[in-house]
């Protein structure tokens, strides 16, 4: 399919001359072209039904999600999400990479919560090989995951407030996001997709000044959240747009498998960090914000409060950060330290085997779920004894939560449809994998 796409060239004054041909004669969109016979004739004028595409290229769909919306005036009668416009076949690519190299692939699925994807995959593989990671690595993982949760909620708050018209929120939220990315850059070396977790612990210990910087951030962040709330909480337009809109009952949400802030906003206190604590979430005391009505405003309030809780968790993680190794020292799965290579022979052999072929995982399969900013993120790995996973599947929360979008929006107005999609916070990279 890829090689028969026409290579198009164009004469422009850009200095490079290319001849012009009919650009997309062979590139008809294979997605089903909606054949709409003008069905307006049969109905009276006010039942004028129109089916349009809120298509892949749309400012308010938070990525390349396509919604086929059937409208009657402003009322949404029917809604059909069409996905796959960002499908990158990550799960297939992971199958021919060794466990060591799968981590960068796995991070790029839900590109706003990359630390959670890494933790889901590494946790699953660590349980397959029964490798216990040292306590310092656990604390460092939780520290970075909570920072990532705040960053993910900030990007959500910025873009959804932008959708509802509060454009200045975008600049404030991204100001804090940049601070968090500086912290990531300091400890891991990269702003996004850091590949900081590895099977057996963490890639590198945090530098000296990192703890001080994180404490500064934690002392500043609650006041910044107060600023957001001061901007939005009593903003009449924001309240009218989000109050009593897109309400779905708790039972229906549970039936649809929705998890995360959407479920908690509907009054169901279900958070995997509290209920089934992995890593060292058990050592921290934080509470789970739970809404009552389950409308757009509750979802906004729940996520704001979650940011505050994450700041508390980070402070407790920093206080209780244990000393000691930041990666397991089981040489079958973890690279030996560099200085040992020149002295001991078997660490050289381990190093060589790990680097060339990667570690082998005994046959088995496991499903391991953690709480990502959007809900339950599960990683299912099938190992067939070789050094490459036989199957990697991610249960992405956005993919499952999108099924509730239809119940939220049918019957409402278009403006409510935009608001529901903003408050649902789908990440299309995670939906399409």
């Amino acid at each position, binding site marked *: 399919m890829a090689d028969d796409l026409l290579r198009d060239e164009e004469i422009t004054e850009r200095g490079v001359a290319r001849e012009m041909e009919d650009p997309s004669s062979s590139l008809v969109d294979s997605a089903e072209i909606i054949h709409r016979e003008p069905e307006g004739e049969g109905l009276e004028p*006010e039942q004028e039904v129109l089916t349009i595409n809120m298509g892949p290229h749309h400012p308010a769909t938070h990525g390349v999600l396509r919604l086929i919306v059937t409208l009657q005036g402003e009322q949404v009668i029917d809604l059909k999400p069409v996905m796959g416009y960002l499908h990158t076949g990550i799960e297939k690519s992971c199958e021919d990479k060794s466990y060591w190299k799968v981590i960068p692939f796995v991070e790029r699925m839900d590109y706003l919560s990359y630390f959670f994807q890494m933790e889901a995959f590494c946790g699953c593989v660590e349980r397959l090989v029964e490798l216990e990671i040292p306590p310092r690595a656990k604390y460092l993982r939780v520290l970075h995951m909570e920072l990532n949760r705040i960053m993910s909620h900030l990007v959500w708050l910025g873009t959804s407030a932008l959708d509802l018209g509060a454009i200045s929120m975008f600049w404030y939220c991204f100001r804090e996001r940049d601070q968090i990315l500086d912290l990531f850059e300091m400890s891991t070396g990269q702003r996004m997709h850091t590949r900081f977790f590895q099977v057996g612990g963490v890639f590198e210990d945090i530098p000296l000044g990192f703890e001080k910087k994180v404490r500064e951030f934690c002392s500043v962040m609650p006041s910044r959240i107060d600023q957001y709330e001061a901007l939005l909480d009593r903003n009449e337009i924001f309240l009218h747009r989000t109050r009593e809109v897109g309400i779905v009952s708790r039972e229906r949400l549970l039936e649809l498998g929705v998890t995360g802030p959407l479920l908690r906003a509907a009054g169901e206190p279900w958070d995997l960090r509290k209920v089934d604590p992995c890593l060292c979430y058990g050592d921290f005391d934080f509470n789970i914000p739970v809404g009552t009505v389950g409308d757009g405003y509750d979802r906004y309030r729940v996520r704001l409060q979650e940011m505050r809780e994450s700041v508390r968790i980070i402070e407790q993680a920093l206080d209780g950060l244990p000393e000691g190794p930041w990666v397991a020292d089981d040489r079958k799965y973890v690279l030996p330290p560099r200085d040992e290579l020149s002295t001991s022979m078997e660490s050289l052999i381990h190093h060589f085997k790990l680097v060339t072929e990667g570690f082998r995982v005994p046959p088995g399969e496991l499903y391991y779920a953690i709480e990502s900013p959007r809900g339950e993120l599960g990683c299912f790995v099938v190992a067939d004894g070789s050094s490459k996973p036989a199957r990697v599947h991610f249960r992405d929360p956005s993919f499952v939560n999108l099924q509730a979008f239809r119940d939220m929006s049918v019957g409402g107005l278009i403006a409510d449809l935009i608001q529901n999609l903003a408050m649902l916070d789908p990440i299309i990279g995670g939906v399409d994998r």
Partner: protein
Amino acid sequence: MLQSYLPVLVFAGLGILVGGTFALLNSITGPRRPNPIKGQPYECGLPTHITRSFRFGVSFYMIAMLFILFDIEVVFLYPVGVLVHATKSVFVLGEILVFVALLLVALVFVWRRGALDWK
């Protein structure tokens, strides 16, 4: 008499001049390279079947009428602002308040009848 209209005419002339030059310049110097896709309506990047003869629902018409009604009312308030300052008499203010009160009654009637909320 013509004196007082001169600024308005100059202002309108400049406006047309600037607007015209930009539009003209654009059409002259802009490279024109029509292709079959460019003419079709844009619907989020997918081929579309919207026919030209699209009939809007009646509720749009209602909202449009109400908007025009109250928008013209605001237009009337502008010259009054200048007049009140110039004549410094309370009578002009009273007159405009009556005008606004009348339209307020109309607004309350429309609101109570439920024409404002969308159905």
